[in-house]
């Protein structure tokens, strides 16, 4: 039956350009300009998928982005595979391969179809009610649900395509290039505004462009010819940028919008390589004009979902734009004049229309009269009560409506057909408007929500503003644009308009049937298989809020967000519950308007750019020397340096031992460094640290703890007084940015009177720490003219020095408990100083160590790591660090909180040391600590925060926090593990060299 449903050629289709494509593994042909849907319809294929819950056969319903049924998987089992693509949007190209999804094993024979016969036991909320209990069963159900009801398959290979993001700033953004959008864009651009016009379709002109009826004329020309000329003109305007295949995904506050420009999806695969596939446009517009049009409503009646049932306007579009007849015996079902427009279009093209069923009893517009003149039978005051045909509609039955429209009367009439078009009137596409924060109002006369209050500088024009007829649109557009753009006149002041569309409509949300509702399937949400029956059930079960009904019945929760059915859902709720539509409110339409691929969202931020990292100046050396790396904040830090076949444990044990026995070297460049200057620098440090700073001599270093105002430890580090009014502060690696931010905050907002200047210098310096009993000898080789004697250069002091001609700062400070020197040198000399230290240390077996060894060494000394041994609930007192909290200072950040009733509790978790009964047994960090594991519920006393095997002490050591731990020295506690209990004893957290002898060894 190839192409026998093509009718008179259309100028949008290039019949000289034949394209072959595959659908469900069979080869078909179409023409350039076809969508997958139009090409399938031309091949007389309506059945393209199965519904989500009942697996009912479903066909193409629409001709646009609102399509609920015809969603397909492209290029199965390839890296370019994509699920949930709407057949109505994808343009065919040579080599296109599409397949039905949500059916197994095939669309024609689908095992899940049995759900259709089981449907009496699959009501609304079925999934919630059944699968919620018992919870452990979910895993079993899930397997079957996923297999039989999946929404396509995501690709498993990495995406071969390129995506990018682009910022666009414009004066006026026009969304939608229908007749209203074209007029608005032209007017705006011609008045000097930098204008951007976007449309999701591959052509301009919206639905008017394929409107060939004598009934709609502008200045005595058929509306499409008139619009054609306008389109040709706007293409020549300089400050107007036009983008087709560009769908606005989100409209945020302050006229910030996201749009997806589709650049290659219509090209054959071999032409896509190296090209950008999608571009995410981040648009900031001074003014926005929404001309997003409207969506035709389906009608809700029994079995309104069979393949071959389409929106009336879609049938018209397939015929006029694609030159495709959706059926050979067409019947239209309507409650307004739109179906008559379709009928006239069809018989102009020579396509048969068997009958029109109209809910309205009295109709006499010019459109209706023309249809009658062509001897098409019109059933006035009738409704469809049922449809027949499993995989394609073949018959409908109709009955007369009662006067009040609540019942059907008389006897049934059967009409044969192979295609049924339905029109329930129009719903303004206000989705983007509401996303922007716009408020809607309900217009009773034709039961639509239209824009009411605008949250930003924007307007809605055309049918998205509830103007559905050509004369309504064109008679008001000029004034609207003049007011909005603040201009004196437009070219559209005195258009002569002929429009024969009569606006009367008989709106019945749920059409009556001769059967009771329980025996019918009137679908409201096609994609999620929600029927009017389900909505009524939800109301009977007590749901009232539209948001709750939505979730319970899943109405509007598909990938189409219920673009077609949401209004009917509201209508049925309103009628059943007896509440007013306008008072029910609507559900929220969330971005994106149509789905975006992840590729579009991440753009170029993939691979190494997904999460960029910071490298120290010595990074390459670590890589060359086979370091394993650890992520600390954005930094890559050397974690340990395994030799040959060493495990992590073996490497760390070796490094730790070498650092205490002879010499170790650490790249500490990642530590945060803040340069502090100003006459009030000392006073400032007094206020931000818990200890006293004013008496620190120049050239001396001091360790400080910084608290939050709530008294909890926030950061720590050593600060050095370089000069009278000059300090250099170090922070933790991860805390550098937030500490700087906090200090700036206090300086600017609480203490603006202080003369203090802060500069982040973290990246400016490389920091190389050499520790161990031989560190002094090594440093004396690297910096021969520096006096390293303990008298001249004691622990916790600093010297300026020079290595060759390069200035450096040397601090004698220690985080390991060993004698230790830290060289700070301008970053680009970091690597050469590191090399010098390695060279000088060779005879002492200088051993590079990573963060793991650093953590082990400091744990032996009981030094805390903020963020590992503390969380946001530890005060210095809890850490047994009372010695660092000044009693004399009048105030510092967090001081007052240290004696709130909660912080002085004796039973707070406090830092303690833990040793295991079996010295070989190493505890797990995070393990719970209890006193008695025999009684349930077991009281949790605390947890292990740091744990290592100490090669220097030859035993397992750990730090932990335990309620009231300070007073539990010597107490035996238990660490319950999955299959054993570990006995531990509480100790002082300092395990090694309590007297600090090693610092001056």
């Amino acid at each position, binding site marked *: 039956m190839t192409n026998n449903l093509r009718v008179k050629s259309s100028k949008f289709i290039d019949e000289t350009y034949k394209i072959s494509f595959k659908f469900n593994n069979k080869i078909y042909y179409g023409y350039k300009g076809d969508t997958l849907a139009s090409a399938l319809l031309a091949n007389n294929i309506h059945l393209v998928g199965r519904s989500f819950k009942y697996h009912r056969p479903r066909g193409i319903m629409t001709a646009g982005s609102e399509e609920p049924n015809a969603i397909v998987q492209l290029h199965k089992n390839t890296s370019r595979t994509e699920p949930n693509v709407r057949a109505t949007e994808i343009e065919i190209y040579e080599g296109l391969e599409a397949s039905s999804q949500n059916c197994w094993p095939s669309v024609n024979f689908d095992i899940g179809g049995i759900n259709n016969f089981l449907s009496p036991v699959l009501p609304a909320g079925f999934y919630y009610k059944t699968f919620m209990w018992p919870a452990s069963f979910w895993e079993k159900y899930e397997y079957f649900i996923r297999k039989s009801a999946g929404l396509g398959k995501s690709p498993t290979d990495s995406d071969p395509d390129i995506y990018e993001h682009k910022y666009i700033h414009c004066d006026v953004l026009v969304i939608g290039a229908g007749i209203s959008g074209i007029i608005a864009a032209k007017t705006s651009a011609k008045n000097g505004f930098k204008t951007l016009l976007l449309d999701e379709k591959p052509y301009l002109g919206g639905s008017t462009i394929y409107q060939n009826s004598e009934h709609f004329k502008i200045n005595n020309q058929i509306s499409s010819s008139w619009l054609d000329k306008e389109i040709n003109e706007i293409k020549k305007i300089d400050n107007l940028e036009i983008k087709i295949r560009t769908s606005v995904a989100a409209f945020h506050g302050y006229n910030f919008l996201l749009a997806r420009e589709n650049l290659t999806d219509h090209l054959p695969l071999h032409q896509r390589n190296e090209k950008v596939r999608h571009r995410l446009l981040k648009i900031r517009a001074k003014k926005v004009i929404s001309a997003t049009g409207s969506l035709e409503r389906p009608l809700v009646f029994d079995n309104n979902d069979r393949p071959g049932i389409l929106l009336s306007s879609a049938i018209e579009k397939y015929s006029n734009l694609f030159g495709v007849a959706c059926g050979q015996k067409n019947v239209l079902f309507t409650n307004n004049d739109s179906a008559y427009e379709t009928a006239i279009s069809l018989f102009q093209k020579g396509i048969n229309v068997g009958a029109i069923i109209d809910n309205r009893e009295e109709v006499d517009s010019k459109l209706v009269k023309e249809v009658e003149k062509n001897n098409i039978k019109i059933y006035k005051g009738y409704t469809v009560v049922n449809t027949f045909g499993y995989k394609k509609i073949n018959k409908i039955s109709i009955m007369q409506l009662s006067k009040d429209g609540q019942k059907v009367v008389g006897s049934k009439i059967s009409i044969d057909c192979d295609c049924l078009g339905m029109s329930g009137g129009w719903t303004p596409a206000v989705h983007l408007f509401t996303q922007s924060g716009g408020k809607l109002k309900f217009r009773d006369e034709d039961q639509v929500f239209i824009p009411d209050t605008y949250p930003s500088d924007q307007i809605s024009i055309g049918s998205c503003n509830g103007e559905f007829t050509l004369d309504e649109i064109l008679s008001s557009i000029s004034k609207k644009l003049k007011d909005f753009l603040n201009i004196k006149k437009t070219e559209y002041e005195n258009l002569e308009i002929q429009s024969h569309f009569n606006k009367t409509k008989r709106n019945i949300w749920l059409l009556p049937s001769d059967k009771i509702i329980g025996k019918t399937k009137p679908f409201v949400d096609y994609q999620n298989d929600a029927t009017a029956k389900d909505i009524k059930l939800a109301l009977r079960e007590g749901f009232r809020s539209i948001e709750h009904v939505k979730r319970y019945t899943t109405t509007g929760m598909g990938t189409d967000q219920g673009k077609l059915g949401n209004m009917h859902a509201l209508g049925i709720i309103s009628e059943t519950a007896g509440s007013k539509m306008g008072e029910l409110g609507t559900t929220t339409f969330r971005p994106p308007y149509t789905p975006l691929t992840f590729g579009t969202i991440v753009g170029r931020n993939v691979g190494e750019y997904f999460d960029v990292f910071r490298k120290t100046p010595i990074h390459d050396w670590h890589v060359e020397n086979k370091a394993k790396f650890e992520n600390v904040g954005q930094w890559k830090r050397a974690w340990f340096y395994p030799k040959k076949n060493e495990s992590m444990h073996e490497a760390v044990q070796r490094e730790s031992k070498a650092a205490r026995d002879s010499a170790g070297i650490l790249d500490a460049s990642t530590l945060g460094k803040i340069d502090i200057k100003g006459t009030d620098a000392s006073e400032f440090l007094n206020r931000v640290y818990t200890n006293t700073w004013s008496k620190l001599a120049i050239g001396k270093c001091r360790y400080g703890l910084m608290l939050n105002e709530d008294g909890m430890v926030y950061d720590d580090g050593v600060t050095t007084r370089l000069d009278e009014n000059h300090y250099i502060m170090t922070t933790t690696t991860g805390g550098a940015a937030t500490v700087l931010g906090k200090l*700036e905050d206090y300086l600017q907002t609480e203490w603006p009177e202080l003369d203090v200047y802060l500069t982040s210098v973290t990246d400016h310096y490389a920091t190389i720490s050499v520790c161990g009993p031989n560190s002094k000898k090594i440093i004396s080789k690297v910096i021969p003219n520096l006096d390293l004697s303990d008298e001249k250069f004691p622990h916790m002091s600093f010297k300026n020095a020079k290595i060759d001609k390069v200035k450096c700062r040397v601090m004698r400070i220690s985080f390991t408990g060993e004698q230790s020197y830290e060289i700070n040198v301008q970053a680009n000399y970091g690597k050469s100083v590191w090399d010098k230290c390695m060279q000088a240390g060779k005879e002492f077996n200088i051993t590079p160590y990573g963060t793991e060894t650093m953590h082990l060494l400091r744990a032996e000394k009981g030094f805390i790591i903020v963020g590992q041994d503390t969380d946001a609930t530890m005060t210095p007192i809890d850490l047994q660090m009372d010695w660092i909290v000044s009693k004399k200072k009048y105030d510092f950040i967090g001081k007052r909180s240290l004696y709130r009733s909660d912080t002085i509790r004796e039973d707070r978790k406090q830092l303690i040391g833990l040793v295991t009964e079996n010295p070989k047994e190493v505890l797990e960090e995070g393990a719970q600590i209890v006193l008695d594991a025999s009684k349930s519920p077991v009281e949790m006393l605390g947890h292990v925060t740091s744990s290592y095997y100490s090669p220097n002490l030859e035993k397992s050591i750990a730090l932990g926090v335990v309620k009231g731990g300070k007073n539990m020295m010597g107490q035996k506690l238990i660490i319950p593990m999955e299959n054993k209990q570990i006995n531990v004893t509480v100790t002082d957290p300092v395990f090694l060299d309590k007297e600090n002898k090693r610092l001056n060894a």
Partner: protein
Amino acid sequence: MFLIHCPYCGEREQSEFKAGGEAHIVRPKQPTELSDDQWAEYLFMRKNIKGVQFERWVHAHGCRKWFNMVRDTSNDEIKAIYKMGEKPPTKYK
């Protein structure tokens, strides 16, 4: 996404800024003289109103200056922006 008029740099995108909570909560000059309740009032209590709210913002990826903002939290309208230390515009109080 707001457009925020930094009093030092001009109009910039929201992604350059960070919000810093309610404005005009002055740190007590003599915390040690406050009762637990008074200190808790300063430390924990925030209004978090739906409607016109006074907020602190910082141009974190810009000049790093803190400033104040009057914002209607119900519709995100920024009604006023003024520097630290300046008096809040009286018409919103």
